């Protein structure tokens, strides 16, 4: 279900995605296994991401990767994919689909709006498109995916209520 918040120059939509958190070196059998499942090779540079119409694949650190399924999969299909990945003993794939919440931010004032909640530098010379960042927003750990015209921001589900209240409060003020 999508829930939206909007204000002057800012539009926020909550999205339901599935997510797999991967650990591994990213090369050799890791890349082979993942590519076999999602038809994408892992990005080489830290904090870079690649995507196709089905997936968004980001390198979060030297051995940590985030895979977001942009089109929802059946539980069984997702489970099968994770099991296949985990059959490779050089990687760990953990299902994080329900432990995260996802918000899409857009609008011409989205950077100003977000800077009411975080010190993060959103200028494109510092945070170019198709990169990600992990930082505090409204004092909670979040991951930001720069999708050029919008940002996808995720945080732990347990903060969902607090985070939404802060988003709304920031719009109201």
């Amino acid at each position: 279900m999508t829930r939206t918040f909007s204000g002057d120059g800012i539009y926020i939509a909550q999205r339901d995605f599935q997510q797999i958190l991967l650990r591994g070196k990213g090369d050799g059998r890791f890349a082979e296994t993942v590519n076999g499942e999602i038809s994408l090779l892992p990005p080489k540079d830290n904090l870079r991401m690649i995507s196709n119409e089905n997936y968004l694949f980001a390198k979060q650190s030297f051995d940590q990767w985030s895979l977001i399924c942009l089109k929802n999969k059946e539980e069984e299909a997702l489970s099968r994919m994770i099991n296949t990945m985990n059959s490779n003993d050089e990687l760990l794939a953990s299902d994080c689909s329900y432990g995260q919440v996802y918000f899409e931010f857009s609008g011409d004032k989205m950077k100003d709006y977000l800077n009411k909640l975080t010190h993060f530098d959103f200028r494109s010379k510092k945070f170019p498109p198709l990169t990600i960042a992990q930082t505090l927003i409204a004092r909670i750990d979040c991951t930001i995916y720069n999708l050029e015209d919008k940002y996808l921001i995720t945080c732990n589900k347990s903060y969902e209520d607090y985070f939404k209240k802060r988003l709304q409060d920031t719009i109201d003020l």
Partner: protein
Amino acid sequence: MTDNKIYFKFDGKRYGGNKGDTIASALLRNNVKLVGRSFKYHRPRGIYTCGIEEPNALVQIINEYNEPNVRATVKKIYEGMVVKSQNRWPSLKTDFGSVNNLLSPIFSAGFYYKTFMGPKGFWKNLYEPLIRRTAGLGKPPREFKSKSTHLHHNIDILIVGGGLSGLLAAKKLAGTDKDVLLIERENELGGILKNSNKVKSVNDQKTSEWLEKTERLLKNSANIKILKNTTVTTYNYSNHLTAIEDRSVGIEPDNKKSELVLHKIRTENTILANGHIERFLSFRNNDLPGVMLAASFEKYIQRYDVVPDNNPVIFTNNSSTFSLLKLLIDRKSMPKAYVDVRDLKKIEKETLDLLEAYNIPFYPKSEIEGCDGNSGIKNISVRTKKNKIIKIKASMLCVSGGINPDIHLFTQSKGLVKWDEKILTFKPEKSFQKTITLGSVSGNFIFKDIIDEVNKKLNFIDGVNDIDLKIEVNGSEEFNIKEIWETKNNNNSLWSKSFIDLQNDVTTKDLTQAIREGFDRIEHLKRFTTNSMGTDQGKISSINALGIVSKLLKKSVSEVGTTTYRPPYNPVSFSAIAGRSTYEFYDPERKTPIHPWHIKHNAVFEDVGQWKRPWYYKKYENETMNEAVQRESKQVRDSAGILDGSTLGKIEIKGKDALEFVNMMYTNSFTKMKPMSAKYALMLGEDGMVKDDGIVCKINDNHFITTTTSGGAANVLSHMEEFAQTEWPNLNVYLNSITEQFATFNISGPKSRIILSRVFNNIDFSNHKFPYMTFNTFDYLNYKVRILRASFTGEQGYEIYVPPKYALTLWERIFYYSRDVDLVPYGTETMHLLRAEKGYIIVGQETDGTVTPLDLNLNWMIGKKKKDFIGKRSLTRSDIIKGDRKQLVGLVPVDKSYGIEEGQHVIEDKNIPSQIDKPIKMLGQVTSSYFSPTLNHSIAMALIKEGNRKIGSQIYVSTSNMNVIPVEVVKPSFFDPENKRLLS
């Protein structure tokens, strides 16, 4: 009421002001000059300045925010505003506190330090309460719910000050690829161009036209942002600055919108173009209402169209007052006199010509001896060059003692300043950070030089071009000044004073006395006299104090040095600092997927880290916590209970070397453990002390899932990561936190198996098929659940792990299937009681970072044959294995009707003397204590010295009313020690 008219109240009387007026300009418009009483002596005080540097005109705004100590010279009026004067009773005109002025001869420097020393006991019982009652100015708000917000900026260049220099810098940077933020304190750009009559034209245009065009150009530049009504308050390391924006300028604060915004700015370069502050001069009664800084007088006329007085006397030691003189003459307001300390030869020709042409009484090489009057100036005494005193009847005196570059922010940035003998002030010498100063803040008081300075200092920036500017000024371009800090006075009254700090009521005599008493270092002197320690930080007077001190010490001002300029530049409201981190947003909150159900069922919540956990559930409105906990725990033992354990940390561990990794992280051995089985495990720090505990589930040798304590989840994961990445990079092992991916329910009690068999009717929960400490994953409806047989209550129990999306539905189904089984939801307090009955520890309650597994009698959890694990080596240290360490025991009161208090001391001696004059031998402390409804008496766990040896003996526990109760030391397992119920 016309569009431009605004009405407000001051001390109960209604006044009219113009839109855009400050409280001060509106009061002056109504010829109100007495606005407050001074801090210490309650002397009548007026409006001294026209800006942020104001030391006197502090007032209280009466509204929801009840804002005290507001500078009347800064705060704009709004319709219906209610303003009160401060620090007076019963009224501003008749203030009983002014008795302090009569007693002032005894209130010399250091009065408090010298007077309130004794007799013993007087400080606490008399002096402090009395001083606290009389100290302070305004009244803070009682109920105040701020909506202040924070806003972060990441930019390339910050320009502080939207005056001439700042605007030129911004103009130069317009259209470049630099992100520029221009901050202006006032509600309009222009600075000196708006405040004074000094500049006649810019580029052959009226200054207002040039300003309008320039502002338009800047607004159309995509790379430049302008913030008005914003004051930069702090300049930190790494070019990080903070600024306060007042969003309620000229309007009543709206409690639905933020009234203040704290801007946090991170910039590559900072351009300080924040101008200068005029300083005053010390003379007899220089605090009387009617004395005002000359530039401020000019600013009231220029910016607010208010002439504070038609015929003031002007007193100066420098050339800057020419513009005021000309302005007054242009407006047909002839000054009563012009008093100049300088020699006739040093005074500019333009000034002399004007004075002569308009026949204005002129006193060169003269000074003001003093002022007289009760609540305002009546007479001004001039000491002429022939040392003759001439009295002039006048009600206002405009004073200029020179110009100080506003170096506060520059010095906060750790930039170095240097005394300039020519302009008699400190000016920036060397930047410590990437800081550029422009205009008068850099000591450049000559307009025609500013453009060259801007071009020269900013040409290092890529993409900028030289700009040109033609400035025509009124009067001479040169700045000329004569040194004077205080005038000679005929001190013929004990109550006449020559002030050096108006806000803190410090006189020049106090400085002399302080030096006489040995406080000859400027930082010591400042603290002894409280000079420049008010909220204005002595903006108009601190340099004067240095001047006077240098004369007294017969040193140069350079040798005396400056005091430290500390942030913030001006007072910052606590609400602005807190921002939205107040009330409902004080701390981020974490909720489990079952939270709405808990609320519906009257849960009272406990904060565990940021988690909201049900503490207990109220069955009826008046049920106390104790009653609820007794009921819940009894019901768990009698039938079954369910706990929302979703907050438990969960970590997935996988890799070829996962088994070795887990063996190293925990004390237990996992090598022989069967797949799909689980083990209660203990994690130590390198010091051998218990760090965390949890259950390790082994899927296979390469794949584990572990649980952690709720509060320790993040620490345990980072502890594991640290060792995986830095100590054992050779191990092929990866970790992921899956805490949020699973909600967890703990169902326990004799009927738990019945309930689960109904919910998951295709699973065999028999002891044979599903023994204790085993787990499995099952398909349930269209998702997977993992069920582990484990218990923290000592009852038959299960933990269910389910994705949060399905958690609430499953939770409710469990209750649906338990309608006839009397399943009770229980909170953390009942969990604590139930585990204590079994003697299970809680990390953080029975441990405090100094407790080893041996102290807890958990030796059985240490894999004796393991070659290594974190903390192993420390467990063999002599101090760890010595016999007299504190060990975990159980305590039961000898008289079962007594309760034992948690946290109390455990002692050997039953007698506590009424007067404790020597340490009482302490055996240890009570770590947990509860009343057990199952056993019908109190039970406690305690860490006591040689605890194991004391089992069976009688010792004592102190009580909060200085008594002791006798207790028996028992093994820390009070209920079902054979684990029959657990394994049933």
